[in-house]
């Protein structure tokens, strides 16, 4: 186990190194000149050059990258070109919110998606099944901005059950998590349905019923743990997909997460922030996948870590 972890962590580090190199190179090739943006409209060429030197942007690519890496090891992600704050500070201040949202969204996805998939599988071929599957497609196809605003309008403005955006209590979390969750639930319900249909055909499900277990115990105690395995692998993948959705949802709900930071940075080509957010999200993705792999043997004892 420890050896496995050590090996996977080394691999993860290599992957992160690869991501950082590629990202850095791509950003290096990008036509927008950060120095010009910093220097402003009225700067003289002299000022521009002096700023370029201060930031080390006159150095060759390898030197710049090497400097970035060495700084990175001491936890220094550089300073935002636009906001002028430490990138690490910006990320640290926003990361908890995003992680929280991610947890909330994953919970929503799992609860909604899995139960939809489960019901559809059990009622396979019926109208309920078809309705649920159409539902899952609506979830996947509906633009998140619209879903978010609709939820906000109905549940926060009209009904007043939840606050209109913001961050702080669990009540703030419900609607954004739900908005993200509806999309993911579409995917999970389809996966769950097909894996559940497969499991329900298995002999051990029949055995469980032969013991006289209640339907609930059969479904949740016996079928679910078997059907859930592909779903766990999916959670690892999910984290990557989140970065897309989180931008919209965070801005609709005023959620102070990393998605908004990333989006603003992309719009303004704020390279240090883009680099930082990329690395952090790559970390999350790599760790998410690692976690999925580590959890798998606990769900299915036949799986060995190798």
């Amino acid at each position, binding site marked *: 186990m420890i050896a496995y972890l050590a090996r996977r962590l080394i691999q993860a580090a290599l992957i992160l190194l690869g991501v950082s190199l590629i990202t850095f190179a791509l950003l290096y090739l990008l*036509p*927008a*000149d950060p*120095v*010009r*943006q*910093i*220097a*402003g*409209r*009225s*700067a*003289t*060429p*002299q*000022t*521009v050059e*002096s*700023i370029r030197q*201060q930031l080390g942007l006159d150095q060759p690519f390898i030197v710049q990258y090497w400097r970035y890496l060495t700084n990175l090891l001491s936890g220094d992600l550089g*300073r935002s070109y*636009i*906001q*002028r*704050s*430490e990138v690490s*500070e*910006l990320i640290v*201040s*926003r990361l908890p*919110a995003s992680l929280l949202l991610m947890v909330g969204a994953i919970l929503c996805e799992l609860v909604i998606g899995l139960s939809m998939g489960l019901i559809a599988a059990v009622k396979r071929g019926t109208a309920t099944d078809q309705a649920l599957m159409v539902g899952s497609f609506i979830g996947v196809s509906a633009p998140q901005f619209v879903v978010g*605003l609709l939820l*906000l*309008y109905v549940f*926060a*403005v009209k009904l007043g059950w939840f606050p*209109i*955006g*913001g*961050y702080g209590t669990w009540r703030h979390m419900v609607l954004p998590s739900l908005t993200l969750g509806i999309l993911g639930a579409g995917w999970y319900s389809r996966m769950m349905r097909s894996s559940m249909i497969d499991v329900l055909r298995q002999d051990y499900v029949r055995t469980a019923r032969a013991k006289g277990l209640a339907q609930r115990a059969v479904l949740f105690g016996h079928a679910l743990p078997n059907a859930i395995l592909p779903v766990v692998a999916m959670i690892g993948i999910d984290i990557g997909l989140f970065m897309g959705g989180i931008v919209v949802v*965070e*801005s*609709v*709900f*005023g*959620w*102070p*997460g990393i998605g*908004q*930071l990333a989006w*603003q940075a*992309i*719009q*303004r*080509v704020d390279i240090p922030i883009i680099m930082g957010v990329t690395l952090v999200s790559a970390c999350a993705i790599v760790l998410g996948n690692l976690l999925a792999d580590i959890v798998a043997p606990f769900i299915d004892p036949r799986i060995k870590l190798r």
Partner: protein
Amino acid sequence: QETLDQKAKQGGAITITYKDDVATLDPAIGYDWQNWSMIKSLFDGLMDYEPGTTKLRPELAESYEISPDGKTFTFKLRKGVKFHNGREMTADDVKYSLDRVTNPKTQSPGAGFFASINGYEDVAGGKSESLSGVSVVDPSTVKIELSRPDATFLHVMAINFSHVVPKEEVEKYGADFGKHPVGTGAYKMAEWTLGQRLVFERNADYWNKGLPYIDKITFEIGQEPIVALLRLQNGEVDVPGDGIPPAKFQEVMADPEQKARVVEGGQLQTGYVTMNTTMAPFDNVKVRQAVNMAINKDRIVKLINNRAVPANQPLPPSMPGYDKAFTGYAFDVEKAKALLGEAGHPEGFETELFVMNTDPNPRIAQAIQQDLAAIGIKASIQSLAQANVIAAGGEKDGAPMIWSGGMAWIADFPDPSNFYGPILGCGGAVQGGWNWSWYCNKELDEKAAAADSIVDPAKAEERAKLWSDIYAKIMADAPWAPVFNEQRFTMKSPRMGGDDKLYVDPVHIPINYDYVYVNDVQ
């Protein structure tokens, strides 16, 4: 001293929302419309404008004198002005602040504004740490010597970059001063939770007694404008900082109760299309003129729900030097076609129109595209993120046409010269510069310099006339096609009080925090 609003009440707290993060609050660095007026409330400069107007008045300076040659400015400082840390502000602070903003290490985007001060070249070139032209006469007197007469210099002393900062705090926080701003302003920073909220607190020691009225201003960050409006309607927000979202504009204006709370005003802004004068076929003035005639400005204004007025010259109407009599190029498709024919393009040509990707800019670009198509110009649209458009504009053959919306040009200060230098003068027509039409007319550069050397306030009329002429000449060469001047619409909650002009203050966006108040205290 200030004449206070009799109806104003002291106290209360308001909430303002923004979508984007607030960048640094360091006055030497902050340079977007969002932190611009926040910095103005935290810091003060030697000069300022009367609230809601573009009229200059002294602020930290009690009075000033301009030498007859217009090259020496002597400011007498107000006494008893204290920084938020309790220390009294002196002339040394003023010099320090100017030295700092021009020092390349500060990486200020505003350093170029101070280019007329003696010794600027040395500081900018790293040869000196101190501007030789700025001298402390006594603790309350500062003398500034210029290398050339500069009529805009008093405006420069009013822009944020010249605001006064305390040396000890700057050194204490270093590069993080922008996160821990300490100034002499009406408000001081109470809390800054990154990505979530900023809280300003009334500066009880403010030198301008009786101001500000409001005790606490909370800026909530990261809020979609539509949601901000919903919250305003719900009574949770007092002013949506990003304004009324286009999607909701008509709904709001259709409701008399809400409409009553919307304040409309002019803005020092012009939306225009640049044409790259170094790129064929836009190197032909007839083509540029044809484009000017082809654009149906009325329709574009209608597209954005009449939130603007059609423009025919670079300067906005509220700017000194705006020529009311100037008619520009009237919308005339036939004439435009004829001009194209004369220029050797009877069948038109293909080109590209760059535009920033946020609503309504791509829509406006499409309207322009259709208008151009009517005279045979097939412009394909490149709708990109702001930074990419700016980058394309800064390359000599990067962008044949750019629609300026969303990126530029809100004036830094209300002076006609501000619309010339970097965006129409030769100095801006360099790689990475902001003169996207690459228009460089040496003769006009000289005229502009001449106009700016008319320092005498009494000759302001004359100077404005000179500028009008310059812009008329520019329009003859037509590097731009001015399209409209945006109007500002600020919405406020019912409890907000104060003169309407405070809500459309030309230099404070969205509102002038120092003078507004709330009605519902005691």
